[in-house]
Protein backbone atom coordinates (compact mmCIF):
# COMPACT_ATOMS: atom_id res chain seq x y z
CA UNK A 1 0.00 0.00 0.00
CA UNK A 2 1.35 3.37 -0.94
CA UNK A 3 -0.30 5.24 1.91
CA UNK A 4 1.67 5.49 5.04
CA UNK A 5 0.65 3.39 7.96
CA UNK A 6 0.03 6.52 10.03
CA UNK A 7 -2.48 7.82 7.47
CA UNK A 8 -4.41 4.57 7.54
CA UNK A 9 -4.28 4.40 11.34
CA UNK A 10 -5.82 7.87 11.49
CA UNK A 11 -8.44 7.08 8.89
CA UNK A 12 -9.50 3.88 10.67
CA UNK A 13 -9.65 5.85 13.89
CA UNK A 14 -11.98 8.30 12.16
CA UNK A 15 -14.11 5.48 10.76
CA UNK A 16 -14.42 4.02 14.27
CA UNK A 17 -15.95 7.35 15.32
CA UNK A 18 -18.37 7.28 12.39
CA UNK A 19 -16.54 9.90 10.30
CA UNK A 20 -17.91 9.52 6.77
CA UNK A 21 -15.18 11.60 5.17
CA UNK A 22 -12.56 9.35 6.76
CA UNK A 23 -14.39 6.34 5.39
CA UNK A 24 -14.45 7.88 1.90
CA UNK A 25 -10.72 8.52 2.07
CA UNK A 26 -10.02 5.07 3.41
CA UNK A 27 -11.96 3.60 0.49
CA UNK A 28 -10.10 5.76 -1.99
CA UNK A 29 -6.66 4.80 -0.81
CA UNK A 30 -7.27 1.09 -0.14
CA UNK A 31 -9.95 -0.16 -2.54
CA UNK A 32 -7.74 -0.86 -5.55
CA UNK A 33 -5.42 -2.97 -3.41
CA UNK A 34 -8.23 -4.88 -1.73
CA UNK A 35 -10.14 -5.41 -4.98
CA UNK A 36 -6.96 -6.84 -6.47
CA UNK A 37 -6.65 -9.25 -3.52
CA UNK A 38 -10.25 -10.47 -3.97
CA UNK A 39 -10.06 -10.63 -7.75
CA UNK A 40 -7.11 -12.96 -7.74
CA UNK A 41 -8.60 -15.37 -5.25
CA UNK A 42 -12.10 -15.40 -6.73
CA UNK A 43 -11.24 -15.06 -10.38
CA UNK A 44 -14.61 -13.51 -10.98
CA UNK A 45 -15.08 -9.77 -11.10
CA UNK A 46 -18.66 -9.76 -9.83
CA UNK A 47 -17.90 -12.06 -6.91
CA UNK A 48 -14.85 -9.93 -6.09
CA UNK A 49 -17.00 -6.81 -6.08
CA UNK A 50 -19.46 -8.46 -3.66
CA UNK A 51 -16.68 -9.58 -1.34
CA UNK A 52 -15.08 -6.12 -1.31
CA UNK A 53 -18.48 -4.53 -0.65
CA UNK A 54 -19.12 -6.85 2.32
CA UNK A 55 -15.60 -6.27 3.59
CA UNK A 56 -15.94 -2.48 3.68
CA UNK A 57 -19.26 -2.93 5.43
CA UNK A 58 -17.45 -4.99 8.03
CA UNK A 59 -14.65 -2.41 8.28
CA UNK A 60 -17.27 0.27 8.94
CA UNK A 61 -18.96 -1.89 11.60
CA UNK A 62 -15.83 -3.14 13.27
CA UNK A 63 -13.29 -0.34 12.91
CA UNK A 64 -13.43 0.18 16.69
CA UNK A 65 -12.12 -3.39 17.14
CA UNK A 66 -9.02 -2.53 15.14
CA UNK A 67 -5.97 -2.53 17.38
CA UNK A 68 -2.89 -0.91 15.83
CA UNK A 69 -0.69 -2.75 18.33
CA UNK A 70 -1.72 -6.08 16.82
CA UNK A 71 -1.76 -5.41 13.10
CA UNK A 72 -1.01 -2.81 10.47
CA UNK A 73 -4.29 -1.36 9.14
CA UNK A 74 -3.84 -2.72 5.62
CA UNK A 75 -3.04 -6.17 7.03
CA UNK A 76 -6.21 -6.07 9.11
CA UNK A 77 -8.31 -5.02 6.14
CA UNK A 78 -6.68 -7.46 3.74
CA UNK A 79 -7.32 -10.29 6.21
CA UNK A 80 -11.03 -9.44 6.21
CA UNK A 81 -11.11 -9.49 2.41
CA UNK A 82 -9.04 -12.66 2.12
CA UNK A 83 -11.15 -14.56 4.63
CA UNK A 84 -14.35 -13.65 2.80
CA UNK A 85 -12.86 -14.40 -0.59
CA UNK A 86 -11.50 -17.77 0.58
CA UNK A 87 -14.82 -18.72 2.18
CA UNK A 88 -16.62 -17.82 -1.02
CA UNK A 89 -14.21 -19.65 -3.29
CA UNK A 90 -14.45 -22.80 -1.14
CA UNK A 91 -18.22 -22.49 -1.14
CA UNK A 92 -18.34 -22.49 -4.90
CA UNK A 93 -17.99 -25.75 -6.72
CA UNK A 94 -14.44 -26.90 -7.39
CA UNK A 95 -13.01 -24.82 -10.16
CA UNK A 96 -11.59 -26.19 -13.37
CA UNK A 97 -7.94 -27.02 -13.04
CA UNK A 98 -5.38 -25.60 -15.40
CA UNK A 99 -3.10 -27.93 -17.24
CA UNK A 100 -0.90 -29.74 -14.78
CA UNK A 101 1.60 -30.28 -17.57
CA UNK A 102 2.13 -26.54 -17.85
CA UNK A 103 3.43 -26.44 -14.32
CA UNK A 104 5.89 -29.24 -14.94
CA UNK A 105 7.59 -26.80 -17.25
CA UNK A 106 8.07 -24.13 -14.64
CA UNK A 107 11.77 -23.63 -14.47
CA UNK A 108 13.62 -22.98 -11.35
CA UNK A 109 14.15 -19.26 -11.30
CA UNK A 110 17.62 -19.73 -9.92
CA UNK A 111 18.95 -19.06 -13.40
CA UNK A 112 17.29 -15.67 -13.47
CA UNK A 113 18.28 -12.85 -11.20
CA UNK A 114 15.71 -12.33 -8.49
CA UNK A 115 14.90 -8.68 -8.12
CA UNK A 116 14.27 -7.44 -4.66
CA UNK A 117 12.38 -4.32 -3.76
CA UNK A 118 13.55 -2.48 -0.72
CA UNK A 119 10.68 -0.11 -0.15
CA UNK A 120 9.19 -1.73 2.89
CA UNK A 121 11.27 -3.56 5.38
CA UNK A 122 8.73 -6.26 6.15
CA UNK A 123 7.98 -6.86 2.47
CA UNK A 124 11.65 -7.26 1.80
CA UNK A 125 12.22 -9.54 4.76
CA UNK A 126 9.39 -11.84 3.67
CA UNK A 127 10.74 -11.82 0.13
CA UNK A 128 14.18 -12.85 1.33
CA UNK A 129 12.70 -15.63 3.40
CA UNK A 130 10.57 -16.84 0.47
CA UNK A 131 13.71 -16.99 -1.61
CA UNK A 132 15.06 -19.44 0.94
CA UNK A 133 12.36 -21.94 -0.04
CA UNK A 134 12.82 -24.35 -2.92
CA UNK A 135 11.29 -22.94 -6.12
CA UNK A 136 8.36 -25.39 -6.19
CA UNK A 137 7.49 -24.78 -2.56
CA UNK A 138 7.73 -21.04 -2.97
CA UNK A 139 5.28 -21.30 -5.87
CA UNK A 140 2.92 -23.37 -3.73
CA UNK A 141 2.96 -20.74 -0.99
CA UNK A 142 2.37 -17.91 -3.47
CA UNK A 143 -0.35 -19.72 -5.39
CA UNK A 144 -2.11 -20.55 -2.13
CA UNK A 145 -1.81 -17.12 -0.52
CA UNK A 146 -2.38 -14.92 -3.54
CA UNK A 147 -4.56 -17.11 -5.75
CA UNK A 148 -6.50 -19.07 -3.16
CA UNK A 149 -5.50 -22.60 -4.13
CA UNK A 150 -6.50 -25.26 -1.61
CA UNK A 151 -4.34 -28.25 -0.67
CA UNK A 152 -6.48 -30.29 -3.02
CA UNK A 153 -5.93 -27.88 -5.91
CA UNK A 154 -2.19 -27.76 -5.21
CA UNK A 155 -2.09 -31.57 -5.12
CA UNK A 156 -3.65 -31.79 -8.55
CA UNK A 157 -1.51 -29.00 -9.99
CA UNK A 158 1.79 -30.26 -8.69
CA UNK A 159 0.99 -33.95 -9.06
CA UNK A 160 1.56 -34.99 -5.44
CA UNK A 161 -0.84 -36.51 -2.90
CA UNK A 162 -2.64 -34.08 -0.60
CA UNK A 163 -0.85 -35.49 2.45
CA UNK A 164 2.51 -34.68 0.88
CA UNK A 165 1.36 -31.17 0.04
CA UNK A 166 0.23 -30.65 3.63
CA UNK A 167 3.60 -31.82 4.98
CA UNK A 168 5.48 -29.60 2.54
CA UNK A 169 3.32 -26.57 3.27
CA UNK A 170 3.76 -26.91 7.01
CA UNK A 171 7.52 -27.38 6.64
CA UNK A 172 7.74 -24.39 4.32
CA UNK A 173 5.69 -22.29 6.75
CA UNK A 174 7.90 -23.43 9.65
CA UNK A 175 10.96 -22.48 7.63
CA UNK A 176 9.44 -19.07 6.85
CA UNK A 177 8.62 -18.51 10.50
CA UNK A 178 12.14 -19.41 11.55
CA UNK A 179 13.61 -17.12 8.90
CA UNK A 180 11.30 -14.20 9.80
CA UNK A 181 12.19 -14.49 13.47
CA UNK A 182 15.90 -14.31 12.86
Amino acid sequence: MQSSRETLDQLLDGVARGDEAAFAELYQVTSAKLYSVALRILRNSEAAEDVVQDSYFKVWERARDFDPRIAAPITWMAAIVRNRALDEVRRRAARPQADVAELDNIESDDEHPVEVLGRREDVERLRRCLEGLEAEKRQMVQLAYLHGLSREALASRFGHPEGTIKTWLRRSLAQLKGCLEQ
Partner: protein
Amino acid sequence: MTELDDIDGLAAEYVLGTLSREERAEAAARKETDPEFARAVQAWERRLGPLSETLAPVQPPPGLYNKIRAQIGLASHVVSLKAREQAIVRRGNRWRSMAAGMTALAASLAGVVGWQDYQRRQMPTQYVAVLQADKALPAFLLTVDTQSNMFVISAMQKPPEAEKSYQLWLVHDDMPNPKSLGVFDDSEMDVRPMTPPGKMHDMMMDGTYAVSVEPKGGSPTGAPTGPVVFSGRLVKATP
Protein backbone atom coordinates in the same frame (compact mmCIF):
# COMPACT_ATOMS: atom_id res chain seq x y z
CA MET B 1 14.45 -26.95 11.44
CA THR B 2 11.64 -25.29 13.38
CA GLU B 3 8.53 -27.44 13.56
CA LEU B 4 5.06 -25.98 13.96
CA ASP B 5 2.91 -27.43 16.71
CA ASP B 6 -0.69 -28.36 15.89
CA ILE B 7 -2.19 -25.02 16.83
CA ASP B 8 0.43 -23.01 14.97
CA GLY B 9 0.29 -25.31 11.93
CA LEU B 10 -3.48 -24.99 11.70
CA ALA B 11 -3.29 -21.21 12.16
CA ALA B 12 -0.60 -21.00 9.47
CA GLU B 13 -2.63 -22.98 6.95
CA TYR B 14 -5.80 -21.07 7.83
CA VAL B 15 -4.05 -17.81 6.95
CA LEU B 16 -2.28 -19.30 3.94
CA GLY B 17 -5.72 -20.34 2.71
CA THR B 18 -5.12 -24.00 1.99
CA LEU B 19 -7.75 -25.52 4.30
CA SER B 20 -10.89 -27.17 2.92
CA ARG B 21 -14.26 -25.53 3.41
CA GLU B 22 -15.03 -27.62 6.51
CA GLU B 23 -11.61 -27.07 8.06
CA ARG B 24 -11.89 -23.33 7.43
CA ALA B 25 -15.27 -23.19 9.14
CA GLU B 26 -13.89 -25.07 12.16
CA ALA B 27 -10.84 -22.83 12.35
CA ALA B 28 -12.97 -19.68 12.06
CA ALA B 29 -15.16 -20.88 14.94
CA ARG B 30 -12.13 -21.79 17.03
CA LYS B 31 -10.68 -18.33 16.50
CA GLU B 32 -13.69 -16.88 18.33
CA THR B 33 -13.39 -19.16 21.37
CA ASP B 34 -9.71 -20.04 21.72
CA PRO B 35 -7.53 -16.98 22.45
CA GLU B 36 -4.29 -18.89 21.92
CA PHE B 37 -5.42 -19.94 18.45
CA ALA B 38 -6.64 -16.39 17.70
CA ARG B 39 -3.21 -15.01 18.64
CA ALA B 40 -1.51 -17.59 16.43
CA VAL B 41 -3.76 -16.53 13.51
CA GLN B 42 -2.93 -12.86 14.08
CA ALA B 43 0.77 -13.65 14.15
CA TRP B 44 0.49 -15.45 10.81
CA GLU B 45 -1.50 -12.58 9.31
CA ARG B 46 1.39 -10.31 10.28
CA ARG B 47 3.99 -12.70 8.87
CA LEU B 48 2.32 -13.35 5.52
CA GLY B 49 0.48 -10.03 5.13
CA PRO B 50 3.31 -8.33 3.24
CA LEU B 51 2.69 -10.79 0.36
CA SER B 52 -0.61 -9.04 -0.40
CA GLU B 53 1.25 -5.77 -0.56
CA THR B 54 3.21 -7.01 -3.56
CA LEU B 55 -0.02 -7.24 -5.60
CA ALA B 56 -0.63 -4.69 -8.30
CA PRO B 57 -3.74 -2.63 -7.52
CA VAL B 58 -6.81 -2.97 -9.73
CA GLN B 59 -9.43 -0.21 -9.67
CA PRO B 60 -12.83 -1.57 -8.61
CA PRO B 61 -15.90 -0.67 -10.69
CA PRO B 62 -16.93 2.97 -10.22
CA GLY B 63 -20.31 2.19 -8.65
CA LEU B 64 -18.93 0.10 -5.81
CA TYR B 65 -18.45 2.88 -3.30
CA ASN B 66 -22.08 3.95 -3.48
CA LYS B 67 -23.23 0.34 -3.06
CA ILE B 68 -21.16 0.18 0.12
CA ARG B 69 -22.63 3.44 1.39
CA ALA B 70 -26.10 2.15 0.67
CA GLN B 71 -25.38 -1.06 2.58
CA ILE B 72 -24.14 0.94 5.55
CA GLY B 73 -27.26 3.07 5.37
CA LEU B 74 -25.60 6.30 4.30
CA ALA B 75 -27.11 8.37 1.52
CA SER B 76 -25.55 7.79 -1.86
CA HIS B 77 -23.25 10.63 -2.71
CA VAL B 78 -20.27 11.64 -4.71
CA VAL B 79 -17.46 13.17 -2.72
CA SER B 80 -17.16 16.56 -4.30
CA LEU B 81 -13.87 18.30 -4.65
CA LYS B 82 -15.17 21.10 -2.44
CA ALA B 83 -16.07 18.69 0.33
CA ARG B 84 -12.64 17.13 0.04
CA GLU B 85 -10.95 20.52 0.28
CA GLN B 86 -12.93 21.31 3.40
CA ALA B 87 -11.96 17.97 4.85
CA ILE B 88 -8.32 18.76 4.15
CA VAL B 89 -8.61 22.11 5.90
CA ARG B 90 -10.41 20.51 8.85
CA ARG B 91 -7.69 17.99 9.32
CA GLY B 92 -4.89 20.39 8.54
CA ASN B 93 -2.24 18.45 10.39
CA ARG B 94 -3.03 15.43 8.27
CA TRP B 95 -3.11 17.05 4.92
CA ARG B 96 0.39 16.13 3.89
CA SER B 97 -0.05 12.44 4.43
CA MET B 98 -3.43 12.57 2.78
CA ALA B 99 -2.00 14.34 -0.20
CA ALA B 100 0.47 11.49 -0.42
CA GLY B 101 -2.46 9.11 -0.47
CA MET B 102 -4.14 11.07 -3.22
CA THR B 103 -0.96 11.07 -5.24
CA ALA B 104 -0.81 7.33 -4.89
CA LEU B 105 -4.43 7.07 -5.95
CA ALA B 106 -3.82 9.24 -8.98
CA ALA B 107 -0.76 7.19 -9.81
CA SER B 108 -2.63 3.92 -9.58
CA LEU B 109 -5.47 5.34 -11.64
CA ALA B 110 -2.99 6.22 -14.31
CA GLY B 111 -1.68 2.69 -14.14
CA VAL B 112 1.73 3.87 -13.10
CA VAL B 113 2.33 2.98 -9.53
CA GLY B 114 5.95 3.77 -8.95
CA TRP B 115 5.99 7.08 -7.20
CA GLN B 116 9.38 7.51 -5.63
CA ASP B 117 12.60 7.88 -7.49
CA TYR B 118 14.43 5.20 -5.65
CA GLN B 119 11.62 2.82 -6.47
CA ARG B 120 11.82 3.62 -10.14
CA ARG B 121 15.44 2.63 -10.19
CA GLN B 122 14.51 -0.83 -8.97
CA MET B 123 12.95 -3.40 -11.17
CA PRO B 124 9.46 -4.11 -9.92
CA THR B 125 8.56 -7.69 -9.24
CA GLN B 126 5.17 -7.53 -10.81
CA TYR B 127 3.60 -6.45 -14.04
CA VAL B 128 -0.13 -6.61 -14.51
CA ALA B 129 -2.56 -6.20 -17.38
CA VAL B 130 -6.26 -5.77 -16.73
CA LEU B 131 -8.23 -6.65 -19.86
CA GLN B 132 -11.67 -5.13 -19.91
CA ALA B 133 -14.18 -3.52 -22.19
CA ASP B 134 -14.66 0.18 -21.67
CA LYS B 135 -15.51 0.77 -18.00
CA ALA B 136 -16.86 -2.76 -17.61
CA LEU B 137 -15.73 -5.24 -14.99
CA PRO B 138 -12.26 -6.72 -15.50
CA ALA B 139 -12.52 -9.81 -17.68
CA PHE B 140 -8.93 -11.04 -17.71
CA LEU B 141 -6.08 -10.33 -15.32
CA LEU B 142 -2.56 -11.10 -16.49
CA THR B 143 0.28 -11.07 -14.01
CA VAL B 144 3.97 -11.44 -14.62
CA ASP B 145 5.77 -12.10 -11.37
CA THR B 146 9.47 -11.67 -11.93
CA GLN B 147 10.36 -13.08 -8.54
CA SER B 148 8.75 -16.47 -9.04
CA ASN B 149 9.05 -16.23 -12.83
CA MET B 150 5.38 -17.01 -13.29
CA PHE B 151 2.97 -15.77 -15.94
CA VAL B 152 -0.53 -16.07 -14.51
CA ILE B 153 -3.62 -15.68 -16.66
CA SER B 154 -6.87 -15.32 -14.71
CA ALA B 155 -10.02 -15.45 -16.80
CA MET B 156 -12.87 -13.88 -14.84
CA GLN B 157 -15.81 -14.22 -17.14
CA LYS B 158 -17.52 -16.88 -19.21
CA PRO B 159 -17.89 -16.34 -22.94
CA PRO B 160 -21.20 -14.67 -23.86
CA GLU B 161 -22.65 -17.79 -25.47
CA ALA B 162 -22.16 -21.43 -24.59
CA GLU B 163 -20.96 -22.36 -28.05
CA LYS B 164 -18.26 -19.68 -28.03
CA SER B 165 -14.81 -19.51 -26.46
CA TYR B 166 -12.60 -16.61 -25.51
CA GLN B 167 -9.14 -16.68 -27.05
CA LEU B 168 -6.25 -14.61 -25.71
CA TRP B 169 -3.76 -13.13 -28.17
CA LEU B 170 -0.53 -11.22 -27.99
CA VAL B 171 -0.35 -8.47 -30.60
CA HIS B 172 2.92 -6.70 -31.40
CA ASP B 173 4.18 -4.53 -34.25
CA ASP B 174 7.23 -6.74 -34.62
CA MET B 175 5.07 -9.84 -35.21
CA PRO B 176 3.24 -10.35 -38.48
CA ASN B 177 0.31 -12.14 -36.80
CA PRO B 178 -1.16 -12.23 -33.32
CA LYS B 179 0.13 -15.11 -31.22
CA SER B 180 -2.43 -17.25 -29.42
CA LEU B 181 -1.90 -17.61 -25.67
CA GLY B 182 -4.80 -19.94 -25.01
CA VAL B 183 -8.52 -20.62 -25.23
CA PHE B 184 -10.78 -20.00 -22.21
CA ASP B 185 -14.31 -21.29 -21.67
CA ASP B 186 -14.87 -20.41 -18.05
CA SER B 187 -13.43 -18.47 -15.17
CA GLU B 188 -10.16 -20.27 -14.73
CA MET B 189 -6.52 -19.72 -14.02
CA ASP B 190 -3.54 -20.72 -16.08
CA VAL B 191 -0.04 -20.60 -14.61
CA ARG B 192 2.97 -20.94 -16.86
CA PRO B 193 6.63 -20.12 -16.64
CA MET B 194 7.48 -16.69 -18.01
CA THR B 195 9.26 -16.85 -21.34
CA PRO B 196 13.03 -16.54 -20.78
CA PRO B 197 14.70 -13.24 -21.65
CA GLY B 198 14.82 -12.64 -25.41
CA LYS B 199 12.74 -11.28 -28.26
CA MET B 200 9.54 -13.09 -27.27
CA HIS B 201 9.94 -11.97 -23.67
CA ASP B 202 10.33 -8.35 -24.77
CA MET B 203 7.26 -8.56 -26.99
CA MET B 204 5.24 -10.01 -24.13
CA MET B 205 6.30 -7.14 -21.91
CA ASP B 206 5.41 -4.32 -24.31
CA GLY B 207 2.80 -5.83 -26.61
CA THR B 208 -0.98 -5.57 -26.43
CA TYR B 209 -3.08 -8.42 -25.09
CA ALA B 210 -6.42 -8.91 -26.79
CA VAL B 211 -9.30 -11.32 -26.28
CA SER B 212 -11.50 -12.31 -29.21
CA VAL B 213 -14.74 -14.29 -29.29
CA GLU B 214 -14.16 -17.48 -31.26
CA PRO B 215 -16.03 -20.69 -32.06
CA LYS B 216 -15.89 -23.26 -29.24
CA GLY B 217 -12.35 -24.58 -28.88
CA GLY B 218 -10.67 -21.57 -30.46
CA SER B 219 -10.09 -19.98 -33.83
CA PRO B 220 -10.14 -22.54 -36.67
CA THR B 221 -7.63 -20.49 -38.70
CA GLY B 222 -4.99 -19.80 -36.06
CA ALA B 223 -5.72 -16.08 -36.30
CA PRO B 224 -8.48 -14.10 -34.58
CA THR B 225 -11.78 -14.47 -36.51
CA GLY B 226 -14.28 -12.93 -34.08
CA PRO B 227 -14.56 -9.46 -32.55
CA VAL B 228 -11.97 -8.30 -30.05
CA VAL B 229 -13.90 -7.67 -26.84
CA PHE B 230 -11.19 -6.93 -24.26
CA SER B 231 -7.65 -5.63 -24.48
CA GLY B 232 -4.91 -4.17 -22.37
CA ARG B 233 -1.19 -3.88 -21.77
CA LEU B 234 1.13 -4.80 -18.92
CA VAL B 235 1.97 -2.01 -16.52
CA LYS B 236 4.61 -1.99 -13.83
CA ALA B 237 3.52 -2.42 -10.28
CA THR B 238 5.46 -1.91 -7.11
CA PRO B 239 4.41 -2.83 -3.61
